[in-house]
């Protein structure tokens, strides 16, 4: 299949006209399937001024199977697992919701949007989601603290 061609095209587009706060590169020039994404924490979020390293892996069946997104930089967020994997759970990345014509650019913008507006109902970290809903100030405080410690 033309998966290489498609990936190359998406990479070119993303490098030439990157979306706000997002910069992409290949983790290894010889491998189109592993990407390094530098994501700036969105303004007006506790992640502002943070620079997050996000790993994007494309399966060999891409674009028929969805990519996976994980945070290499530790982040305090209801939708990112607080472990060494830093997996992010995105609705559009679920196998049954993914469409082969969906674009990586959209995935990354969606992921960045999620930093600004967490979705506590689809949380992978229940405790953080709870805090986000009930004690926003404390949540933002911890998230800022973590951003300063890990992402600056």
């Amino acid at each position, binding site marked *: *299949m*033309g*998966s290489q*061609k*498609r990936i190359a*095209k998406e990479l070119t587009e993303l490098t030439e006209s990157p979306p706000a706060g997002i910069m992409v590169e290949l983790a290894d020039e010889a491998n189109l399937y592993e990407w390094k994404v530098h994501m700036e924490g969105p303004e007006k979020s506790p992640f502002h001024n943070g620079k997050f390293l996000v790993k994007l892996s494309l399966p060999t069946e891409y674009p*028929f199977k969805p990519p996976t997104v994980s945070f290499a930089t530790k982040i305090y967020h209801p939708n990112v697992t607080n472990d060494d994997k830093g997996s992010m759970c995105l609705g559009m990345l679920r196998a049954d919701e993914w*469409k082969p*014509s969906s674009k990586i650019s959209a995935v990354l913008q969606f992921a960045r949007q999620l930093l600004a507006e967490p979705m506590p109902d689809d949380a992978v970290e229940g405790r953080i989601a709870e805090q986000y809903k009930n004690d926003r100030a404390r949540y933002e405080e911890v998230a800022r603290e973590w951003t300063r410690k890990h992402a600056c």
Partner: protein
Amino acid sequence: MLHESELNSIKGKVTCDSSLLAYPRQLCRSDITPPITRKRKAAEVDNDPLPKAATKAHGPRHATSDRPALSKHSSAATEITDNRASPASSASQKKRDLVTPATTTASMDSDDDFMSDVSSQDDFGMQASDNDSLGEDFGDLDAGFDDKDIFGHKRKPYEVEFKVLDPPDIENEQLGQVNEVCAILGLPPESAAILLRFGRWNKEKLIESYMEHPEKTLEDAGLGTNFEGTAKTETVPGFMCDICCEDGDDLETYAMRCGHRFCVDCYRHYLGQKIKEEGEAARIQCPGDGCNRIVDSKSLDLLVTDDLKERYRELLTRTYVDDKENLRWCPAPNCKYAVDCGVKNRDLHRIVPTVHCFCKHEFCFGCSLSDHQPTPCTLVKMWLQKCEDDSETANWISANTKECPRCMSTIEKNGGCNHMTCRKCKHEFCWMCMGLWSEHGTSWYNCNRYEEKSGSDARSAQAKSRSFLERYLHYYNRYANHEQSAKLDKDLYLKTEKKMTSLQSSSGLSWIEVQFLDTASQALQQCRQTLKWTYAFAFYLARNNLTEIFEDNQKDLEMAVESLSEMFEKPVSELAELKVDILDKTAYCTKRRVILLSDTAENLKNGEWSFNVEW
């Protein structure tokens, strides 16, 4: 022990044939396709535990051949139980044959006027229409579960009406409804199918919602309002596929009516992955980002290979059966049949809907477990749960522990003195008399204070909880025993074939003459299954004047079963002489089972039982 004929007269009061004539059958089910009828007859004959008696009883049924798979026993047993049944049944048999679709409508009208439009639509000669009127959500009007239907004549009170369907039948059913909707709404069949699947095959609701908001309904179902154009692949100059980024003027492409165009290779790959890997069929969307248009069967047929089409249809059929409340797959391994039955979930406290698949598996339509007559599904679940929790440890607990008189925690005394302090509630008591330790004075380690009030209260509480356990164990042991015996009988059954062969050679009996062993063995299995569940049922039963009859019936069946089981174990050389006895006993067992089940089912239906649990 009473002679069998005496027993008959005593238990005669619990047979129900006299009430059966009162109700004419209301549902006309004479439109089964010929292949099923043939298969079913074959299955019935195979199953029949009493070939001789059955031959007679089969007479009228063969002539009309419209019965949806009757219970194996019904015909044979009717023959024996009640002589009046024969003339009576043939008379009303004729009556039933005269029932026309018009009568069906009329009878439903009487249930509720609202049904009239709906059911008259059903009567337009659709092969499948008969079944759906049973299973739609409109069933709230009780079209499916009606005393007259379920307890119609010839069917025992514990039997329900059902029909076994094989995959082609199910496909035809779907097709019938698709054609109907497509004729009413004027949509192409592939779109009507999508609409129906979206509406979970509730035709009436769907048509109503379409009439009110056609565009919204179509949009929600993933159809869109544009039905122009035919499905074909084409080449488009200057096209680039959004999925693989290939371009070229000679690239074959395809788009559904939503206009999202991709190259045929990608489309095909996408569909293949959905069908093969994800097992999706009814809800495959257009590959276009954010487009919720459902891929229709016409597009699919155009794009994918034959084996995928096959799989696609299989998956659609699976969804269909899952969606319909009146259909359920036979749970037997590798069985391809589904059963159509009108019993609803809310009826399950009044009836135990056992159905018989063509594969010979008997299961409950309500919960898919193996036949558990006469115990209702909810009690079965409670019982199984209880057994899982209790039985392994119950015996040990009973033998080795006592409960703390205050908090009822179970306590094991692992040696030491009689001064017990409950770890949970810190209650201090004497292990021997269960009385308060503080009342013990100086007579430690040597309890002789039997008369103390606190002690006797505690002991009676203890005795009560112990008696609960004992009561449970009483029923459990019998339940488990029949389960175990059924297994052993089954082992015996596997040897039966061998036995029969050796019997043929040693006694000079022909193959057909030794079939009585097979019949006996099957009857034994079935009776034990029933007996087993009568104990679970009895456990939840609160005593009233009916329980005694129930227990008598249970006892009679049990005695008959045990004596048949005993005959069965005789050496092969004696079996030939026992043939008549075994035949008699088999028939007797079967009859006792019918009586027990009929009686229990009748009372269940009429809400005559009282139970010691809420359910």
